[in-house]
Every structure is written in structure tokens, then in C-alpha cells.
């Protein structure tokens, strides 16, 4: 199943240049694991980095630096180590979370310990992430979320279930890459809960009094 909603070009550039805030980078990595199209786009962005790096004016290395480098090679084992065996082939298991999420939420979707934050909405918030806010959300099927926009950037990836909003239908693997100007109101599909991982670099803004009542519950 190929994702149909991808990372924004500006996000790809930011990821490539090492400037994407940590929480957003986790969600981008999770999508990249599932999306060959975005991996190719990332490679294009990395080519820009490679060319800009080559363009710089520099002096040749000093003799001192060269001998330090050779001394490091002397203490390296003669045989290059085998690359570790890939363990990414298990992605067909629908219970398994993307690798990029393991340090923050563990491996298994079933083993997650959800906390109710509002009617029909459960959440797990990652702790200790340096830049931004990272959380898993589990939203009951057929729910309408409060209308909201974002102060900064928000990146959401669907892990299970689906939702629809003015931007289209979002299913597993899809990312919604939104900036501050977009006001949206996702409606989750009937059937199974919609589980997604969301990252923001700034607090969300809900509009309307119902939403303002909900906001403290979300704790965004």
C-alpha cells in the first residue's frame, strides 16, 4: 500500500539539512520508512547539500591532520565489518510501529497504554524529546475533531484507520504536512479507531468555545 499524501518539499529540505525540529523529524522518518517516493525526494535534497558542500572554498589539509587520520586507520580492524542485517522486513506486521517511533513508544501498537484526554480521544505523549511536541492519538471511529489551526508546523502520519478533511482522505502511511495557515476539521472514518502520530513545533489553536473548553483537556 503506497502512501498518497507525502511530505511537503519544504519539509524534505529541512530534514535533509538537519534543521527539522526533533519531533517533526521523528514523524518524517516514520513516513520515509514506508514511502520510497519520499526517499527519492530526500536523495534529491541531499544532492543539493552535496553540491553546496563541494562549492565551498577550502585549503588542502595539513600534514598533521593527514597523519592523525592515518593513525586512526592503523587502529581499525583490517576487515570491514559486515553491515548489520536489515530488520526492516517486518513492516508487513500491522501491529508493529515504524522503527523511528520505537524509542518513544515501543514496538507494538497493541501494547500501547492509552490515556483518555477527551470523549473519544486517547493520547500518549512522548517525553524527553528536544524540539517540539510528539504524541500518538487514538480517535474513535466516526468522530469529528474540533476545528483547529496550528501556530507553527504540524506533521501527522496515519498508522491505522483513516480520516477525511478538506485536504482529502488520509489512510495508513499518509502524512498531513500542515503549516500555521490551514484551519481543518478531520472526521475519522467509520469502523476502526484512527491511530496517528503527530508532531508540532508550536501549540495548536482551536477555534470556537467548544474547542476552547476541549483545549485544556488536550493539553496542547
Amino acid at each position, binding site marked *: 500500500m503506497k502512501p498518497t499524501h507525502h511530505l511537503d518539499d519544504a519539509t524534505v529540505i529541512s530534514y535533509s*539539512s538537519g534543521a527539522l525540529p526533533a519531533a517533526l523529524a521523528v514523524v518524517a522518518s516514520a513516513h520515509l520508512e514506508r514511502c520510497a517516493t519520499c526517499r527519492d525526494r530526500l536523495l*534529491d535534497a*541531499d544532492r*543539493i547539500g552535496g553540491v553546496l558542500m563541494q562549492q565551498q572554498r577550502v585549503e588542502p589539509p595539513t600534514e598533521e591532520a593527514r597523519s592523525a*587520520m592515518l593513525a586512526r586507520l592503523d587502529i*581499525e580492524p583490517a576487515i570491514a565489518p559486515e553491515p548489520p542485517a536489515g530488520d526492516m522486513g517486518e513492516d508487513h506486521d500491522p501491529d508493529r510501529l515504524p522503527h523511528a517511533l520505537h524509542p518513544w513508544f515501543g514496538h507494538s501498537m497493541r501494547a500501547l497504554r492509552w490515556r483518555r484526554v477527551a470523549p473519544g480521544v486517547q493520547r500518549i505523549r512522548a517525553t524527553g524529546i528536544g524540539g517540539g511536541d510528539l504524541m500518538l492519538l487514538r480517535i474513535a471511529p466516526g468522530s469529528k475533531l474540533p476545528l483547529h489551526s496550528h501556530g507553527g508546523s504540524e506533521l501527522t502520519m496515519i498508522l491505522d484507520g483513516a480520516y477525511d478533511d478538506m485536504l482529502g482522505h488520509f489512510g495508513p502511511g499518509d502524512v498531513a504536512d500542515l503549516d500555521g495557515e490551514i484551519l481543518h476539521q478531520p472526521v475519522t472514518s467509520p469502523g476502526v479507531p484512527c491511530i496517528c502520530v503527530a508532531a508540532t513545533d508550536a501549540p495548536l489553536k482551536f477555534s470556537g468555545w467548544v474547542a476552547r473548553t476541549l483545549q485544556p483537556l488536550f493539553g496542547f
Partner: protein
Amino acid sequence: MTHAINNTPLDAHYWSAQMSAVSAQRDRASFMRIYDHFAPLLKRYLRNLGVPEPEADELVQEALLTLWRKAGMFDPTRASLSTWLFRVARNLYIDHVRREPHWLPVQEGLDRLDHAESARIDSEPESSLDQDFLLQAIDRLPAIQAKLVRMCYLESKSHSEISSELDMPLGSVKSSLRRAFAKLQRSMRAP
């Protein structure tokens, strides 16, 4: 014309041959040819990102050691050596300087996926000609787009940092970067 390009030391085939010698014969002379050309570029890149001199020297050595260890993973049909080394240095920067301990394992996982893919599909090699087109396209970018691209890559500034530093709305920062990326991508696909 082709002959002249093939003789420049920046040629993709030249670096690809050095990499084969490093991976197959553990050839130190080839390794040092790569070192002499790329170590100063990597160091300048890291110093521009604000990495202090001693740490930058350490990271450059680390990047070249990664090359020594993983030369067999280098795939010239997937990326040129400068692209590959840019990735290595960027990843070390995020790991060591920004202290995001999960970044390297995640990137290694993505590399393996890429590796499996290029073995499966018939990908176009990245030639030095493509790099020349890209370089020209960067030079032709409108001033503001060029500035934003450089602030991203050479200063590693986030969109919101750029937005507040230039007093430019976040949406405009992003849309300028999108336009720049579209132009640069087209240049890489130039016939």
C-alpha cells in the same frame, strides 16, 4: 567534451573508482585521495554550522572512518560521493552536536531500504554532468530563494528560525523553498 569532464578530479567515475579500491583492496592511497579532497570541505561545512574547531576535526575523522568502514555500501548509481559524504556528515552533526541519539540507527535503517531498492530497480547513475546542471541551477535561483536554501543547508536553520531572522512569514519561507526545490529538481532531470 565528455573527455574533458572525465579528466577533472571531481568526476563521479573517478571517485567511484577510488571507493571500489577502498572497499575491495582496503587501499590507503585511494582513501587519502578522498580524504585530501573531501576532509577540508566537510570541515568547512561543520564549522559553518557552528561546530567548534576541535570537535569539527573529530567529526571529520569520524566521517572518513565511516567511509573506510562502509565503502562497500557506497552505490554510485544511487548517489555521488559528495552526496553520500554530505549525508554522513549531516547525520554525525545531528547525532553528536544536536544530541539526538536515535537519529543514526534510523538513518542506517533508511540506508538499507535504499540499498535494497537500488539493487531491485534499474536506477539512473548520478553523473558529474547532473551535478554541473544542479550547480548552475543554484546559481540561477532568485536571490531570496538562494539565500533561504543556503540558510537551510549551510546554517541548518529551521523554517521558524529563518522566518524570525528575516522577519518573513513562515508561509512565505516555505513557499519560497518549495519553488526553489522544484527548480533544482528539474535541473537534475535535465535531458
